[in-house]
């Protein structure tokens, strides 16, 4: 962790969706820190709140969702409560974002060049020629062959991998200090996934960006990030350096997740997987106390009483579980 002010500091973030007569909490008090130039993985299953967290950073949680409490500071500046105008100046300029599905996040009726130019001219005052040169340079930077010819292409004329490269070019157009990548390769085939992850790693090195990688894929986490935060039902349940998390997962949920994927350390082909029983709870039916207790094989009565703190259990390794002993 960084000693100075971290690039992104999220404290006690609470986001809820207010449906008629019912509040659906998506994020229930998340703390997250991303240092300058750091890569952090945010891992969890569907509905755990990982994507809503990313949208909150960009001020993109729309009605009926609302950031209920907490603070999101980027380079020391509070983002929660900023006016839409001020947020637009942050979005794209200081924080870039790559979404899962490049087909739906690019506008189908505008050319690649137009959309890329828009990303630049929103934040910079540039001449036509400068915009064009920079767009060609960006497409080249993300490895798109014949970039001059691609400026006039529409998203539908590109393959999924190329579309995701265009998304990445837009996200890094203004040289943001932080890139949020929400399942950036989930819609892609595995060989294309490898290309895109390689591209993200190269850009991160060359541009010195920090990356928050949001994913359900522990393989991507193991291969690509330095530190991991595991989310379950709107809470961070474990946080550690990647090597420590995989070497000694502490929270029973993390252990369950690792046991569930074929090919994790300690699993052999053909063995039964150590699956977690039950299902991810609906956000309105999360149990009291520890949110994982009804699926946990270590749960005791005390787990129902209070939500455990996310506390240090090993040096640099925090977990939110009563049953894990503290050795720090």
């Amino acid at each position, binding site marked *: 962790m960084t000693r100075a002010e971290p690039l992104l500091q999220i404290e006690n973030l609470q986001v809820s969706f207010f449906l008629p007569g019912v509040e659906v909490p998506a994020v229930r008090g998340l703390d997250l820190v991303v240092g300058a130039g750091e890569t952090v993985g945010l891992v969890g299953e569907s509905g755990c709140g990982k994507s809503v967290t990313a949208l909150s950073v960009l001020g993109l949680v729309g009605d009926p969702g609302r950031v209920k409490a907490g603070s999101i500071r980027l380079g020391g500046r509070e983002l929660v409560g900023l006016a839409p105008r001020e947020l637009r100046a942050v979005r794209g300029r200081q924080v870039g974002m790559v979404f899962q599905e490049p087909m739906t996040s690019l506008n189908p009726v505008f050319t690649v060049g137009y959309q890329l130019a828009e990303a630049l001219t929103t934040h910079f005052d540039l001449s036509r020629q400068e915009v064009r040169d920079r767009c060609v340079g960006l497409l080249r930077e993300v490895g798109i062959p014949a970039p001059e010819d691609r400026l006039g292409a529409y998203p539908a004329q590109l*393959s999924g991998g190329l579309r995701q490269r265009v998304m990445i070019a837009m996200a890094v157009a203004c040289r943001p200090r932080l890139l949020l990548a929400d399942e950036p390769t989930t819609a892609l*085939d*595995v*060989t294309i996934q*490898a290309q895109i992850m390689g591209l993200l790693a190269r850009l991160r090195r060359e541009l010195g960006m920090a990356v928050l990688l949001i994913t359900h894929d522990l393989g991507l986490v193991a291969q690509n990030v330095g530190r991991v935060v595991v989310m379950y039902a709107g809470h961070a349940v474990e946080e550690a350096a990647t090597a420590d998390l995989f070497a000694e997962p502490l929270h029973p949920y993390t252990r369950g997740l690792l046991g569930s994927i074929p*090919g994790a350390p300690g699993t052999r*082909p053909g063995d039964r*997987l150590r699956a977690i029983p039950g299902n*991810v709870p609906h956000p309105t039916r999360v149990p009291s106390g520890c949110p994982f207790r009804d699926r946990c094989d270590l749960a005791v009565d005390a787990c129902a009483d209070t939500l455990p703190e996310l506390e240090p259990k090993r040096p640099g390794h925090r977990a939110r579980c009563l049953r894990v002993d503290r050795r720090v």
Partner: protein
Amino acid sequence: MFELEAVTRHYAVRQGPFRTRAVLRAVDGVDLAVHAGETLSLVGESGCGKSTLARLVLRLERPTSGRVRYRGQDLWEMDRDAVRRFRREVQMVFQDPYASLNPRMRVAQIVGEGLAIHGLARGAERDARVRELLEQVGLPPEAAGAYPHEFSGGQRQRVGIARALAVEPRVVVADEPVSALDVSVQAQILNLLQGLREDRGLTYLFISHDLRVVEHISDRVAVMYLGRLVELAPAADLFREPLHPYTRALLDAVPVPDPDRRREPRVLEGDVPSPIAPPPGCPFHPRCPDRFEPCDHRVPELRPTGTARAVACHRCG
């Protein structure tokens, strides 16, 4: 159990600004045998023809040329009774548990429908069978009276599996049965499929793009690229020593969930070419790091190498 002999499935498509006719070669000359009791996985990236191959095996598509035989009988030369028997003995589990269950039917009807159609059980006996099946797939008996929307994705997939098992099939064709599920639930379903296979001696034809899942559950693996089989091998051999350059690239690209085995994968260049205009020669040669003289004009045959393996590559064997 199944024998595929030079099976092709082409589709006539119209494309481009002038709607010109073209032929999409979804499956292009596949020879393959599925043995009784094994789990054979078809792997490959989107558009490689693996789902079309499954549909050919299920007699949902008629081959453009070549033959598909089930227990020695050509699927398209069967009489009505034989087709009916085939429909009972070969069942399917679909990818999307949200789209493959009728939302207006209760679970008891969904699972019991096959029993009714094939006249296997009726009345109280059918209800009892349904309860037994639900129990086998890990659902409570009350599930029988519920509608699909009342269940999570994993539970729906269990209903889909119970439906497939109801008619006592010999073969289950499963097209991406766990890809729509969360990791923790995916493991439950994989365990269930494995347990059922052991209890009932089922043969699985498993279609997946997830190589970690495939390594975990398969006896043999067939790798497809642009409508052709490029490699066929026992799973353990394939994952230990992939022979075809495409298989190697595919395995290399899978992120290993172990930070101690971090590596820079040898990344394949470019995209999969269109099956409408496949490259001449070996379909993989434009992306292949090992291509040499014959690759761009001669199609490599799938040739046996060693005891139980086969590979279609000019570099191998």
